């Protein structure tokens, strides 16, 4: 996959990745996904996304080659690779903040390193390819359990941990009402995972009926289309006894719809780091003293967010990229026990060679697309 500029990607032959550090491995990709956050790159929203980059931070594969110091995996192992690149040794990694590793991104300090996610996130090529360089192979790549479906495994690289951590950061207590903004794959997964923490209601908000219908069935939650209501914040207040939700989760990020001013300043003119409509609604819909959890991706410059309301309402905001490696043992257990069915999110399986169409389908919400898996066709 080769990015050529906003809304333009293509499949073409690229040079084979090489071992550049003794802790690197080269992985032959067996499955890779297009993530909703890849669309921010595809739409040109993330600074320092260079032409010639390969995207893709969700992938599984077979270890093809290892560096001199790699002992944790061996050639031939089938592995899933967490989307964040982490050393496992620095002070942040020691705290379990694997999304904030200090030894993998020279280009920025505010962002950890992510496969195929611009030079702001480290300048690594991603997994929407036949082969990919995986740094810190002693830490990141995790051998896929023998009894695990490969489609479940690939979703454990990002969607499931990010959805789960979104719910976890909400500090959900028994009986809570949780509102999830965005019924994309992460939002749907966050709504599903929220039940693990014991709420009495989980509500999801989006603007596309097909996604809401999917969310209702998959995540067993209430689902509402904000286009059918004059004011979503007022609506959410009304259905929560006029107090607001206990926990609001932003799974949308910088390309939110629903507010003309945010759209103009954030999406059209890029005067701020994307439209912060979902975050604005989350802050204004949560109860006083409530928790807002953010996993939606925003750009690095400033955003118009109602920070005064955060202060006046005493809201706790918790946000981060998911620390995949920390969550994997628990999530593998949930999948193996049948409590979670990640592959149920997959609606499209497309050969990697058709990556241009795959991006367009997902970006334009064609064919009721929820989650696309790309498969390098020559390998299967």
């Amino acid at each position, binding site marked *: 996959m080769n990015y050529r500029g906003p809304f333009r990607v293509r499949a073409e032959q690229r040079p084979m990745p090489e071992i550049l550090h003794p802790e*690197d491995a080269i992985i032959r990709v067996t499955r890779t996904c297009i993530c909703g956050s890849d669309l921010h790159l595809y739409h040109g929203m993330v600074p320092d996304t260079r*032409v010639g980059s390969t995207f893709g931070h969700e992938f599984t594969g077979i270890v093809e080659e290892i560096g001199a110091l790699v002992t944790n995996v061996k050639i031939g192992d089938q592995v899933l690779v967490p989307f964040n690149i982490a050393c496992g040794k620095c002070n942040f990694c020691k705290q379990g903040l694997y999304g904030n590793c200090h030894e993998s991104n020279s280009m920025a300090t505010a962002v950890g390193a992510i496969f195929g996610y611009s030079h702001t996130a480290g300048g690594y090529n991603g997994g929407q390819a036949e082969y990919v360089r995986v740094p810190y192979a002693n830490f990141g790549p995790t051998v896929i359990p023998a009894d695990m479906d490969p489609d479940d495994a690939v979703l454990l690289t990002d969607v499931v941990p990010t959805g789960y951590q979104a719910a976890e950061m909400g500090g959900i207590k028994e009986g809570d009402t949780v509102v999830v903004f965005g019924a994309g794959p992460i939002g749907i997964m966050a709504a599903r995972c929220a039940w*693990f923490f014991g709420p009495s209601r989980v509500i999801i908000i989006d603007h596309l009926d097909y996604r809401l219908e999917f969310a209702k069935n998959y995540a067993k939650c209430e689902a509402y289309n904000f286009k059918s209501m004059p004011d979503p914040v007022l609506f959410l207040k009304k259905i929560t006894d006029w107090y607001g939700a206990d926990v609001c989760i932003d799974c949308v990020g910088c390309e939110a719809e629903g507010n003309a001013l945010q759209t103009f300043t954030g999406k059209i003119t890029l005067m701020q780091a994307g439209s912060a409509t979902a975050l604005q609604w989350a802050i204004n819909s949560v109860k006083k003293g409530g928790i807002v959890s953010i996993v939606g991706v925003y750009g690095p410059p400033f955003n118009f967010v109602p920070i005064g309301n955060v202060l006046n309402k005493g809201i706790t905001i918790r946000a981060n990229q998911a620390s995949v490696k920390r969550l994997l043992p628990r999530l593998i257990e949930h999948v193996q026990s049948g409590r979670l069915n990640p592959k149920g999110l997959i609606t499209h399986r497309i050969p990697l060679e058709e990556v241009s169409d795959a991006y367009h389908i997902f970006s334009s919400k064609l064919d009721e697309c929820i989650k696309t898996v790309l498969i390098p066709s020559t390998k299967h």
Partner: protein
Amino acid sequence: MKTENFDYKSIPGWGMDMDPENEPTYPMKNYTGDDHKRSEYEKSSQQPVDIEVLKSNERPTYSAVFGSSVPPSGLSGMIRRYAFKHSEDRYRHWIPLIIADRVNAVEGIFEDLKKGTIPNILAERGWKSELKYNPAGLAKKVFVGALVTSFVITYLARKKG
């Protein structure tokens, strides 16, 4: 809508990850109290810096490993080099990067042409899937595009005449 009689506790996994300690805690719950020793860890060996890497000026050294997918080049590279002279706190870091990305997209077209490749921009934008799944929308876009083009041509022709 909320179903009053629905037993939400029957949802597989309901409540099993409840953690009374998880009150705005993570990542603080793993805080070790030894932040003063934060530089004392066994760092991996340094990846050789044998290409141009634009390093954030908010850190003194390169990270032990880094990505090397597309080194800066051309006009966009010059703009990026300027951006990296400023910290991540400054607009003069981020705005030039966004401009450089746009310049880079144009450079990419010239790069293709230089290699003898005429980029198939329609295919790169996924027109085949648009034709398959949204033919009416595509027809509308083509119609509007043709209409705007003909207006512009007519206007310019009149101005010339």
